[in-house]
């Protein structure tokens, strides 16, 4: 007990001080453009935030981004895991290549996508479209959210794939054979044996990805800077833009506190869901 105290103390300090400061700043008037305006503001900052025309779009964008990326990575990851589980020559190399995007840092991958793939003039996508006689698309200008979802999914698909692939490898092959003898075809084996086996791993992927996807920032900053308009502004980027572009630390802190609350609500449900499924599996 006593020996754990330093570790617990450091963790507490680490967490409580920034959180406390954020709560404090969210309750005072603190604009760098208007340093004379000081004092306790109550929930004024929260009210301003709520009335900010970019707040609701940011919440919706966050949900759309997280939801879409989760759907793409879990669906795609499962499909890839099933695909890569079949034996074929060079499978180990292929697995390594499939995982590779995960090791690219977000800023780099965003820049690669922005300048080398999605760019309407130099991009590979534009070249591919023109090869089949179609006009190039200005991805980041025309469909910024879709582009962003593509970039982030590309980054997180390897993670989902890796977790699900490993889980699939731990499936007792006899179970699949038993299902085949019971008369199950490929689709039924997938539905009744593979998918239930992957359920826990999918839970882990959803939990971990959600926590990271809620705070996506670098990709937005390097590609669209939250625009055009508010179309790719999520909560994390909104907090940044309020605090460091509009220099209103108070409102920015209020946004940060809301994001913390939101993340905690999500984490609470996910952890509970995961815990029950772990208990069932034990």
């Amino acid at each position, binding site marked *: 007990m006593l020996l754990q105290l330093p570790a617990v103390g450091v963790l507490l300090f680490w967490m409580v001080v920034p959180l406390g400061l954020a709560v404090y700043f969210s309750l005072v008037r603190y604009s760098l453009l208007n340093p004379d305006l000081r004092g306790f503001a109550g929930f004024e900052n929260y009210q301003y935030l709520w009335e900010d025309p970019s707040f609701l779009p940011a919440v919706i964008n966050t949900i759309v981004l997280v939801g879409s990326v989760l759907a793409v990575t879990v669906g795609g990851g499962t499909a890839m895991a099933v695909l890569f589980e079949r034996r074929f020559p060079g499978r180990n190399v292929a697995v390594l290549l499939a995982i590779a995007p995960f090791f690219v840092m977000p800023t780099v991958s965003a820049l690669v996508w922005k300048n080398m793939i999605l760019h309407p003039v130099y991009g590979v996508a534009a070249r591919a479209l023109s090869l089949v006689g179609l006009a190039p698309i200005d991805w980041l200008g025309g469909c910024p959210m879709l582009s962003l979802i593509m970039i982030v999914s590309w980054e997180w698909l390897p993670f989902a794939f890796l977790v699900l692939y490993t889980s699939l490898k731990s499936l007792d092959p006899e179970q699949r*054979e038993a299902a085949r003898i019971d008369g199950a075809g490929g689709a039924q084996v997938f539905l009744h044996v593979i998918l239930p086996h992957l359920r826990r791993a999918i839970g882990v992927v959803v939990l971990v990805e959600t926590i990271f996807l809620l705070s996506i920032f670098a990709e937005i900053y390097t590609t669209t800077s939250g625009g055009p308009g508010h179309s790719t502004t999520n909560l994390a980027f909104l907090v940044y833009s309020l605090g460091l572009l509009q220099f209103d630390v108070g409102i920015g802190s209020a946004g940060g506190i809301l994001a913390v609350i939101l993340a905690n609500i999500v984490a609470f449900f996910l952890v509970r869901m995961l815990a029950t499924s772990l208990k069932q599996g034990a």
Partner: protein
Amino acid sequence: MQAPDRPSALPAGGAPAKGAVRLRGLAKTYPGERGHAPTVAVKGVDLEIEPGEFMVLVGPSGCGKSTTLRMVAGLEEPSAGSIEIGGRDVVGLEPKERGIAMVFQNYALYPHMSVFNNLAFGLKLAKRKSEEIRETVTRTAGVLGLEAVLHRKPNALSGGQRQRVALGRAIVRDPAVFLFDEPLSNLDAKMRVQMRAEISQLHARLRSTMIYVTHDQVEAMTMGDRICVMNEGAIMQVADPLTLYREPANVFVAGFIGSPPMNLVSGTIQGRAAALHFVGGQGPEPLDIPLEGTLAEIARGHQGRPAVLGIRPEHLVLTPAGACHLLPPMTVELAEPTGAESILYLRGAWGGLSARIAGDRLHKTGDNVSLHLPLDRIHLFDAETGLAIGRTSAGRAPD
């Protein structure tokens, strides 16, 4: 277990050919990966299994018995040969179309389904009516004593119960042929004996053909109508348990069946003073055993050739009865008293032996023992081919 209350697996009236299994030239070769030579798992197995027969495939690990079973099940594609089940060639058919059911070593239950759903899964896939499914599952669960746990998940069951669910899942399919792949190897010794009896009872009641793979010779001997001993992908001998024990066709079967295994001594057959002798063992004073009666007749053609003499540990005696040959005194290296009998591992100047003798005397390591070898219990094998030359114990009435 309860009295049978289910329709017979045999078709009414006509010949029960439904469960006949015939393997012809069945072979399986796995292609070598990355420059390795291809692995031959099964090389040309011919085997006929009668309808309703309990056939045990037994052999050391890697002998191809499981691969053979998996080819019958349709889980492996044979490289060559044919498989007929009930007179129908099933090579290329899906497992579900073969009229078989399989019980796996690790039970292979569906962990997320209740026991009821585990049993019902195959029937549901076959699109049976839910009423019929409920009735079949309940009846099978009743036979296996699983009614109380139908709603439980497999991980809440004991090993024996899981094995029963796996059995039940096979039974509800009402197959012509049951396939067992070492189903008892994950159970503890006591449970294994109990499940062994239950499977035998199940066979007696259903009268379906059963093919049972095991590496445990006790399971093979106690359960099989006939036993197929395999080694290195080939069949060594197919016979009923007693024939296998009394008349092993070759050195491998002689050494595999029986515990401790048959003593095998290498040597030559020599003719001296109008009689044949087996001379074997190492050292300046070799073992010299006279061959008598029919065995001497049979061995005459092998005179001067290398041979292997076999004698079962349980046939060596301390006090002679009938025609016996007194072996030179040997030292006890290890004594294993089990109560009713003791197993002695002995060493003499010419080599070593194991003997199973009555347990009324306690032997200690270092004791000197003189054993008698009954001349009418000898097996002789050709040292080059490994095949049996003959035996004096053949055809003897059981003691």
